[in-house]
């Protein structure tokens, strides 16, 4: 279907999670991202669709790649981009997040990109400020642009992800990336498998629309793609896993372990990687297998698409209600 065939306009003025999207929304985002991906490969990358708009990237958690990706996305569309990296400590000094939100809203931004350690934080900002908000990660809840860029990367390889078998391996319990990906992959009819030690899998994960495995070899059987997640070193201290060595031996991805998967099985990682722990260097750098750099490249295009679409939507609304 050509884009002109849509009689459906992207309806969202925020992107707080994958859970609010339908397959058509995803398709609109992907079509838009495809154009940005092509443009980003050219020498002149500068667009003007967000010209005159102010985008505030509000990051309460340390981030390099996601912040850079959102900053580039906004700038390539012509927005004025400001980064606030506020440590969560500033809240504990007395200012409530509601005060922070109202202060920022008074600066009249048009787009907010929020990362915060508390689930629901992006929704909180959106509701309090009325400014179009993109959730760039709220605790262990959602990270919708990451899931979109992951699925976009797979869609570009395969045409569609429906009917494909995808395994997500590692610390599912603490992962917003896993939560958003399970939702999005379910939405698009992929078969999702979750694999990790029982301590890193939520007790009710089998009710998420995914099959749960504790044995990596069984989980990888027949997979078209496998995504492995970063294992945080503090999980060892909390008694969730005994050691990095044991984790790497049981759940680390290697070329050998992919034997049971499909011969052309893709390997994904949302980054940053612990090389030699959840994935070997050889596999991460294998151009036949690894999509890791494609994911990063797709990330800028997806974020451009999302920023543009929600800005268009909120712009319309402003005109309707003067």
């Amino acid at each position, binding site marked *: 279907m050509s884009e002109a065939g849509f009689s459906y306009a992207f309806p969202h003025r925020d992107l707080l999670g994958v859970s609010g999207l339908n397959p058509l929304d995803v398709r609109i985002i992907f079509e838009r991202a495809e154009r940005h991906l092509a443009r980003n490969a050219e020498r002149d990358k500068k667009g003007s669709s967000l010209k005159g708009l102010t985008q505030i990237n509000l990051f309460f958690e340390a981030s390099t790649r996601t912040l850079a990706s959102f900053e580039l996305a906004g700038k390539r569309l012509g927005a004025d981009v400001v980064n606030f990296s506020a440590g969560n400590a500033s809240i504990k000094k007395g200012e409530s997040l509601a005060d922070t939100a109202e202060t920022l809203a008074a600066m009249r931004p048009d787009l907010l990109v929020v990362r915060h350690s508390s689930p629901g934080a992006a929704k909180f900002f959106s509701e309090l400020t009325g400014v179009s908000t993109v959730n760039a990660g709220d605790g*262990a*809840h959602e990270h919708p642009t990451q899931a979109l860029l992951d699925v976009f990367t797979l869609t570009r390889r395969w045409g569609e992800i429906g009917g494909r078998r995808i395994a997500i391996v590692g610390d599912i319990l603490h992962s917003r990336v896993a939560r958003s990906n399970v939702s999005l992959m379910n939405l698009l009819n992929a078969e999702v498998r979750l694999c990790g030690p029982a301590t890193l899998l*939520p007790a009710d994960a089998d009710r998420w629309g995914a099959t749960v495995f504790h044995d990596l070899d069984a989980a990888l059987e027949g997979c078209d793609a496998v995504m492995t997640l970063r294992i945080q070193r503090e999980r060892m201290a909390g008694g969730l896993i005994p050691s990095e060595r044991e984790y790497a031996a049981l759940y680390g991805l290697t070329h050998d372990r992919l034997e049971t998967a499909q011969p052309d099985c893709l390997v994904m990682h949302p980054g940053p990687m612990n090389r030699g722990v959840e994935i070997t260097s050889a596999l991460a750098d294998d151009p036949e297998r690894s999509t890791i750099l494609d994911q990063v490249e797709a990330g800028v295009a997806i974020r451009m698409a999302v920023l543009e679409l929600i800005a268009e939507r909120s712009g319309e609304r402003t005109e309707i209600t003067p």
Partner: protein
Amino acid sequence: MSATLITGARLVDPASGHDGPANIRIEDGRIAEIGDALPAGPDDEVVSARGRVVAPALVDLRAHCAEPGGSGAESLDTLMAAAASSGIGTITLSPLSGTGISRPEHIELIAARALTAPVRLAAAGLATSDGIEINEIGLMLRAGAGLVGDGGRPIADTRLIRRLLAYASGFDAWVSLSPEDPFLSAGTIAHESDMSVRMGLPVRPGVSERIGIERVAALAELTGALVLFDRVSTAEGLAAVAAARRRGLEIAASVPATHLMFNEVDMGGFDPRHRLDPPLRAESDREALITAISEGLIEAVVSDHLALPADAKANPFSDAVPGSASIEALLPALCTLYAEGRLSLLEALRPVTSGPADLLGVQQGRIAEGAPADLIVFDPQAPVVHGRDGPVSQAPSAFSGRRLHGLVLLTMVEGAIVHQAET
């Protein structure tokens, strides 16, 4: 001295199981006579309560304010005004009210304030300091503490719980303890379920409550102490309470009013007003709590009133301070269960009248000749929207905007009318 006569009402008294028409004569702050057609004397004040219900004024076993020792969103005066307007005749301050009720002097201070208070004030003393050593329980009880407890912070040290229960058993005092495993519950924000896990919140499993109850119940069996499990909220916890009772232990349980009205779905939108401790549980847990009340397994339904300043809730769900201003919803929550046909009025009122009064060892909470005239006149079916008509307590409440039933028309404490609705 003249008397007051309440006529035409339906009298509901859980202590005696009476539910039917009766007149009540009140003299010298006490109930002088209960009967079918009591004649009014020439100087008697007659309160016509035709079509209304008369019941004992409520006894709330758990509320917080900024006192003793602090200042903040809710003073003792505003708390008592809110209580009077919502049919509560006796408030029990939680051990963690104000800066903590941990010394006999704090109890004496509250007793002094009670002399001029519109409603009765009771206090629960904090049983231990930081879960390390036992406070002056004997002196606090002698000064008038109604019970002692951990105030909602589970004591980790099992040996200290044993010593606390053994020591308190010498005074025949109820010891109110949190039904939680201190480690499984630490740092948790939501009830463990597929829903909360998807929301990415740190979760508390129902089994934490079961283990907390089984641990303390075993020690109650060892020491012979009277234990009140303070704010039971799960089906697993209720099963553990029932099992302990079957072994013949003197175990009581309280339930927060919020958990009879709401479940985890109410916090699904990350609304900080529904950040509570214990967290809102599954619908099956809420159902189990209501069933337990109808079966008489629950001695007390508590408001667990905690008036927080607005900025304590001006943060995302998991950073908001847990708690809700709920005292004005205590009776409406129970009336709503009555209006929905889930509980009879006797079942609904027992855990806010004679149930908690018996735990405190006080005479009010019942309608009997010679008992203190602590009464309410109310309409259990009247629809109300919580907070719409300007609640007395201005703090954030999980009940804000909720449609409930139950309107208090008159509150009487020791024969004195402390609240009368404008009609």
